[in-house]
């Protein structure tokens, strides 16, 4: 009874279950948001409240905070499922597990990404982000946080059960292209230039990243079974 039509059903199963669980536990979506705001606050505290200084750095600060918050938020994506045996069921299902992993990552992104985006819009006020670039900010962060969630999931799978900081050093160097693209979009938007080229590049990275990173994540998860 291994019909392939079931893959979509399985995908929806994982997605719905994880969404239900995430909303039952408000800490899941509130803590990344608070962390983000705290990190953002540290910059004016450390650098001084000068409007011109903060304004020139705003895009970068927001992007860095978003990257770090996404990374930390995705840290525990597999630990509960691994411990209570839910992850086992994915492998027994004879469905391609990377699709189910993507369902988990997607759920995580929907639940944690939205608060982060919200927090970044708020931070644009705190950091005097130049006006007119909010749309660019939101769209670049949407793509960027999805990529970070994918990378973070791989890091979480590799360092399953071990420290979060290890996961961070694994994942952060690989997120540099995302950071550079994202801040490029912001600079272009601030200078009122066209940034659609960068969006397509990020889109391409996602198109390859989604299957590629999910497949590698499955490999990494399997390591923990031996």
């Amino acid at each position: 009874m291994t019909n392939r039509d079931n893959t979509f059903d399985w995908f929806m199963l994982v997605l719905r279950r994880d969404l239900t669980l995430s909303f039952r536990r408000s800490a899941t979506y509130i803590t990344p948001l608070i962390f983000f705001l705290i990190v953002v606050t540290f910059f004016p505290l450390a650098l001084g409240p000068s409007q011109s200084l903060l304004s020139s750095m705003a895009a970068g600060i927001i992007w860095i905070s978003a990257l770090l918050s996404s990374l930390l938020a995705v840290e525990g994506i597999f630990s509960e499922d691994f411990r209570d045996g839910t992850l086992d069921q994915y492998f027994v299902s004879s469905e391609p597990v990377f699709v189910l992993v993507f369902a988990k990552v997607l759920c995580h992104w929907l639940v944690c990404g939205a608060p982060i985006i919200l927090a970044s819009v708020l931070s644009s006020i705190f950091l005097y982000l130049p006006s007119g670039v909010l749309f660019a900010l939101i769209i670049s962060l949407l793509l960027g946080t999805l990529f970070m969630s994918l990378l973070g999931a791989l890091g979480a799978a590799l360092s399953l059960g071990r420290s979060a900081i290890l996961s961070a050093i694994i994942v952060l160097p690989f997120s540099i292209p995302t950071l550079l693209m994202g801040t490029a979009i912001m600079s272009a938007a601030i200078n009122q230039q066209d940034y659609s080229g960068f969006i397509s590049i990020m889109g391409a990275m996602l198109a390859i990243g989604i299957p590629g990173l999910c497949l590698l994540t499955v490999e990494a998860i399997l390591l923990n079974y031996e």
Partner: protein
Amino acid sequence: MSNILKVKNLNCRRSGEEVLQGLSFAVEAGKNVEIIGSNGSGKTTILRSLLGFINDYDGEVYWNDSEVSSTLQEGDVSCFYQGHQIAIKPLLTTYENLKFSSSGFNSSQEEIASIANKIGLKHFLNRQSSSLSAGQKRRIAIGRWLLKDFNLYLIDEPFTALDDQGIELIEDIVRELNNKGASFLITGHRPSGLNSQKIYLDVKNDK
């Protein structure tokens, strides 16, 4: 009698260490096999190797009377697995734990309610599983066996944390499913009252 599963000369390893050598057995359709051993004898490793979590084993595994040794994915047998950890989410209700499972996601509300009735959790259908006892959580896990038809049930230590009523429940369900042609491959510390072929493992070696 057709064999849903036949194993020949299985050598299992866990983290590179040999745990089991030379195990052979067959599971016929509608019949059960029980693997009994103490802790560390390799019971869980056997199941995990058969299911494909662990690739580090030697031996031949034939699914569904096939001529060729294959993995579970290639073998095209519908299996249900319940491991040591029964995958019951404390934040979900009984209904959700049944619905959001590998066997339940296509089941209707009525079907799930009737299964809940059968396992004795009718009044706990919308209760969060965190407030249930270990035995009750086990019953939810048993409920999952009934939501869909499978050919082979691989259950790791099904009788843990169950009282006499729970044990009787399992025995009834196994009997019912056997009549439908399904088979059980279970593991345990001591032999159960099920009608099954019992295989005893010594530590490090097959009997």
